């Protein structure tokens, strides 16, 4: 069965979802990520959904589950790059993913993770002497 690839970037895991996931693929991702978090003791997970065209309640629930499970394992998950049309639709659906952290893009997500890890961060405008 096909699987969504998980990349490791330093202390973080990065998942970029580019295909319209069927239900089993989404569940497989949840399992794979849990495995990898345990194996790598990664301190953060970034899930980039900027090229996803639809998130329904099933995929939404899987994303929420990933966040909850990773938190129980001591890892923060950030969902990045949700498109406006999807955000509007999810809110209308009643799925606000309130326990999930979000960021506009991978960079912003990375910064968010670094802050919550207490690491110092530096970046153009944010540099604050």
């Amino acid at each position, binding site marked *: 069965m096909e699987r969504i690839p998980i990349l490791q970037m330093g202390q973080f895991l990065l998942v970029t979802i580019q295909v319209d996931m069927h239900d089993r693929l989404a569940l497989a991702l949840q399992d794979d990520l849990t495995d990898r978090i345990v194996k790598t003791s990664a301190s953060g997970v970034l899930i980039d959904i900027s090229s996803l065209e639809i998130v329904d309640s099933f995929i939404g629930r899987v994303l929420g589950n990933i966040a909850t499970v990773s938190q129980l394992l001591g890892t923060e998950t950030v*969902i*990045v*790059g*949700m*498109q*406006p049309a*999807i*955000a*509007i639709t*999810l*809110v*209308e659906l009643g799925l*606000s*993913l*309130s326990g999930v952290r*979000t*960021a*506009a*893009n991978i960079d*912003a*997500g990375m910064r968010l993770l670094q802050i919550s890890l207490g690491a110092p961060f530096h970046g153009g*405008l*944010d540099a*604050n002497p």
Partner: protein
Amino acid sequence: MSLSSTSKIADLLEKNETELLRNWLTELEASGLRRDDLMRSTELNQQCHEFLRMFRSAAQHENFSDVQAPEWGSVRQLLTDISRDRAQQGFTSSEVATFIFSFKKPLFDQLKRELAQQNDLLVESIWTVTDVLDQLGLWTTEVFQQAREKVILRQQQELLELSTPVVKLWEGILALPMIGTLDSARTQVVMETLLQQIVETGSQVVIIDITGVPTVDTLVAQYLLKTVEAARLMGTDCIISGIRPQIAQTIVHLGLDLSGVITKATLADAFAIALKKRQLTIVSKASQSV
């Protein structure tokens, strides 16, 4: 209406098609409907030709005088298409109706010539034809009106998008100053535009300033909150500023939950929070040089 008048009309349309078409086009030209500035004359010829052909086949049926009957379906469809096109092209409603009404004279002339000896039949035929053409004319203006309304609606929408500017206050900070009464249609357009702008500018903080909004109704208040939620899903923080006491009361009254939303009294307060969120500070030069 007797069968003889109907079959007479069908007959006559069949025999004199070319001549009728020519006379009709002359009539249209005289009435000023040939607007070369708005459409090409070949297009008009084509439309007249097609109308004649369909009109003739409809005339072969018993339901001739009821233009809502299925036999008239293709004529109605043709007129619908023509009216819609003209609404887009910028014709007036009387110009569109004239398209049909100007066919009366050529047709009457022809009937007079054919039925010169049969007065009763002539009167009956003219009456039938008038009735039908009037119905078709009305149909045309109705469709035209609807198409116009659509055009106007679209223009209003475009204006709406223009009239609610999203401004970039700082790198990563957007503001949406809303002014005037918000109805739900406007709010929806504005909010969708705002969320789109967030993506395009890569902003992390958005301030929705409603100082200029006197009141909101339930639906609008809900849209505001939904927008805040949607923005959060996209990774952007929202601050609502300038909530008037009256609006605050509406929100409480409706039992809407604002607990997850940052609210500030003024746009300036909101901006200060936004800068803080972006880890920026404003320092006066004087204090810096000390």
